[in-house]
């Protein structure tokens, strides 16, 4: 568990850093996919195997492909992003991010309870998850379905535009 955690954590950090720092957009997306994959591994470590599967299915399978399509439609094929010079206000951005990091983490480090908590033995069974989705969260599920439908239609309308050349956005 310990070794696996550090492996997945370092891969996730590496992927995230690659995703936001690489100039080549396609490579950035693959960094992002590495990050998603490592996160799915962390979910597995936390015994949430259904969520790990959903994470790979939705993020690696759908979101990644969507992003690649968007890059292919808006960028040169090689995916290079050198025209815009890449970044802006780097110093202030980093400063703000580090400040946020300290701000987010300060309560964690001060709170002594966290160290004492130990993992509970329960595992996430898919059956229980399904029952929970039907019993207290049925309305939320319906609203999510509605939201996804609306997003699908909205994405098609927005991406299609008024011109002739537009074809519908790929969707999952």
């Amino acid at each position: 568990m310990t070794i696996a955690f550090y492996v997945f954590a370092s891969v996730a950090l590496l992927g995230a850093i690659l995703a936001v720092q690489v100039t080549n957009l396609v490579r950035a997306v693959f960094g992002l996919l590495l990050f998603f994959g490592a996160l799915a591994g962390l979910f597995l470590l936390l015994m949430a195997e259904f969520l790990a599967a959903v994470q790979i299915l939705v993020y690696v399978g759908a979101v990644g492909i969507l992003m690649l399509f968007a890059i292919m439609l808006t960028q040169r094929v090689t995916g290079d992003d050198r025209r815009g010079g890449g970044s802006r206000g780097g110093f202030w951005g980093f400063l703000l991010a580090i400040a946020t990091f300290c701000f987010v983490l300060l309560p964690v480090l001060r709170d002594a309870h966290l160290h004492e908590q130990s993992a509970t033995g329960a595992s996430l069974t898919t059956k229980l998850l399904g029952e929970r989705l039907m019993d207290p969260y049925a309305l939320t599920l319906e609203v999510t379905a509605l939201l996804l439908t609306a997003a699908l239609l909205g994405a098609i309308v927005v991406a299609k535009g008024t011109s002739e050349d537009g074809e519908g956005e790929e969707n999952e």
Partner: protein
Amino acid sequence: MIGLEHFTILAALLFCIGLVGVLTRRNAIIVLIGIEIMLNAANLNFIAFWRYGENTEALSGPLFALFAIAVAAAEVAVGLALVIAVYRHYRSVDVDKLKSLKG
């Protein structure tokens, strides 16, 4: 032994990396990538707190993460559609160039 604090620190680090991406990059697609990283860091926290928490039977953490993933997928679809629409209009996805509302 890996405790809850390891996961929290990792999630905070990932969140801040995403934040750096959103704040410092000009390309709209990279900004979206940064948002995705931040959302996923939050999901990691949900799962970790569920796992190390007391009431695991309620499954509130995984369920919240599940809904967050669904909403994030919708967000990406709409966001990328917007990026493509913007690109059609301005021939660029540089967020600094979108300033026609600036007066």
